[in-house]
């Protein structure tokens, strides 16, 4: 994976206003984040609620426009594109959402869900749409196709709905898929099948992923690389097994200790459980309030994300 990155995110900042009038303030859920995704690579973005992981995913597919920083795809700057350029960009990058119950229209059949993205982004003749729908449904394992085409969302199980959402995203043959907690609302016995499907698509179409999750175990299973986020910043990034087996950042260690199934016993390595400060103009490391190893410098200076060993980056003063 030493070749050119497919996606390059530099110094990404997203800020949202809160309150209005004189009381208007800004929160910065994504604060100077940089990372790359190689072609066909699965990058897992792990964090708790409020860490900014979903906001990064949304900025990446340009549902929202970054406040500053840049996003490049295959060398082209897509940070502020609009109109036709944005439509063309979305042929290359698509998103699958967490909730397969909310992301499909209850009064449309599977076929109609599929028809729109295929027609809008098609590169072939009109007559081929039917075949393309069949092919997409077969790819995600929704068979028999002739039956599935005519079903409404309420006739499908959660897993099947998520397959429809994936088929829809893949209809335009993108190079990158942003998958935001795609399995967290599904039954345990169904989750593994969806992860399998995503993995299989990665291999068959050399699809790259930004896999957003709160679950380190599934990030380890599916991700080639894991980035751990806290308070709008990346705390640590490393190849998946390396990160789980040799965590360096105190926050990664805390997350690992807390994950169900971990061998950790005894009290958790943290000092409080305050949620991170996201306000604009905050200083210091976002984890300083909870960190058991906190030093004076942590409260005044934000540690940069530095390469500690090959491919292992950590943002910590330690």
């Amino acid at each position, binding site marked *: 994976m030493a070749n050119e990155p497919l996606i390059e995110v530099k110094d990404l900042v997203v800020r949202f206003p809160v309150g209005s009038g004189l009381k208007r303030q800004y929160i910065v859920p994504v604060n100077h984040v940089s990372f790359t995704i190689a072609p066909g690579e699965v990058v897992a973005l792990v964090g*708790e609620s409020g860490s900014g992981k979903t906001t990064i995913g949304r900025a990446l597919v340009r549902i929202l426009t970054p406040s500053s920083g840049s996003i490049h795809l295959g060398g082209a700057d897509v940070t502020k594109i609009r109109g036709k350029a944005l439509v063309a960009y979305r042929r290359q990058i698509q998103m699958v959402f967490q909730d397969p119950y909310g992301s499909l229209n209850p009064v449309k059949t599977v076929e109609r869900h599929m028809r729109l993205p295929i027609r809008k982004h098609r590169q072939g003749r009109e007559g081929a749409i039917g075949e393309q729908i069949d092919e997409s449904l077969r790819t995600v394992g929704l068979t028999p196709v002739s039956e599935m085409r005519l079903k409404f969302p309420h006739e499908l199980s959660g897993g*099947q709905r998520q397959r429809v959402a994936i088929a829809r995203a893949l209809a335009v043959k993108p190079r990158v898929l942003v998958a935001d907690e795609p399995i967290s609302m599904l039954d345990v016995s169904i989750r593994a099948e969806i992860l399998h499907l995503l993995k299989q698509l990665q291999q068959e179409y050399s699809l790259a992923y930004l896999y957003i999750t709160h679950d380190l175990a599934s990030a380890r299973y599916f991700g080639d690389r894991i980035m751990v986020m806290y308070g709008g910043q990346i705390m640590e990034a490393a190849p998946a097994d390396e990160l789980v087996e040799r965590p360096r950042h105190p926050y990664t260690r805390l997350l690992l200790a807390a994950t*169900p199934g971990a061998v950790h016993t005894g009290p958790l390595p943290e000092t409080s459980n305050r949620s991170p400060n996201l306000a604009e103009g905050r200083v210091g490391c976002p984890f300083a309030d909870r960190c058991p190893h906190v030093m004076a410098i942590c409260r005044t200076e934000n540690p940069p994300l530095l390469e500690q060993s090959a491919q292992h980056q950590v943002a910590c003063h330690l």
Partner: protein
Amino acid sequence: MSNHEAILEINDLSVAYGTAKGDVLAVQDLNLRVLPNEIMGLIGESGSGKSTLAYAVMRLLKGSARVVKGSIRILGRDIYAMDKEELRQFRWANLSMVFQSAMNALNPVLTVETQIIDTLLSHRPQLSKSEARDKAYELVDLVRIDRSRITSYPHELSGGMRQRIVIAIAIALEPSLVIMDEPTTALDVVVQRSILDQIKEIQQRAQFSVLFISHDFSLVSQLASRIAIMYAGRVVEVTKARSLMDPEVAHHPYTEGLWRAIPKITGKSVALEGIPGTPPNLLRLPSGCAFHPRCRYAFEPCRTMRPLLQVVEGSEISCHRFVPEEIHHGQ
């Protein structure tokens, strides 16, 4: 196990929901015992009947749901034989419940302090107001919330703190059994872990039993001593939590499948295997063993005969694989 006096004893319980298409059994012929001072895990996917079971034990079934068969005894007393006042006295003093969404369990217009004190006074009218307040402080200490926060309203507290308050209220009257229905599902992993650690600590100190309902296998296997696994309204296995990590111990094919379907954080990264198919529709349950259409070991009797729970290597499993050959021929 029969020489222990069970705290909770469920015998042959069936719970039905009335629907336009007739009664649907969400819980079917279910037997379960929770022993003194144990944390018993109850695992199941959505629609397996685990929450219905919890509501049945609390005698809180609503709408068209009702117990159609069997009995539920807590501390030896049949809760469906009690009259309203007896039930009100019994509930919370002996049996309490922590619901999944702490948000909805607390009253938004009363302070946390008032809610804890109200709970105490309504069951222990002999307590003075200041005694009740002291007890409320003790309770918030127990769940490690700063005493200064006790005058807060629920919306001023984080999700984790609210859930701790709910737990404090649940154990306020020192009940013998606390039912916890996915108490940490809506919370972040770190908060979840610290609450689970506290539940375990308080449980060991105050000596009560917990029926802990969850869909998260790794979590329950760490917290509970025994685990019951539900599928399509029935308990398919009751096993020691430790035995799940041991590849030598026999399990129900569904248990085995679930365990293989979860990504693990420790050890070597091994390939996951899902369970093919989807959980069954209760209106159209498969014949025989409800799991047979998804089971890799299914053979002839599974399609026609319902397996019963029986002891296999220290666990109880309902599966024809573990039934001696001659019984099949005998029937």
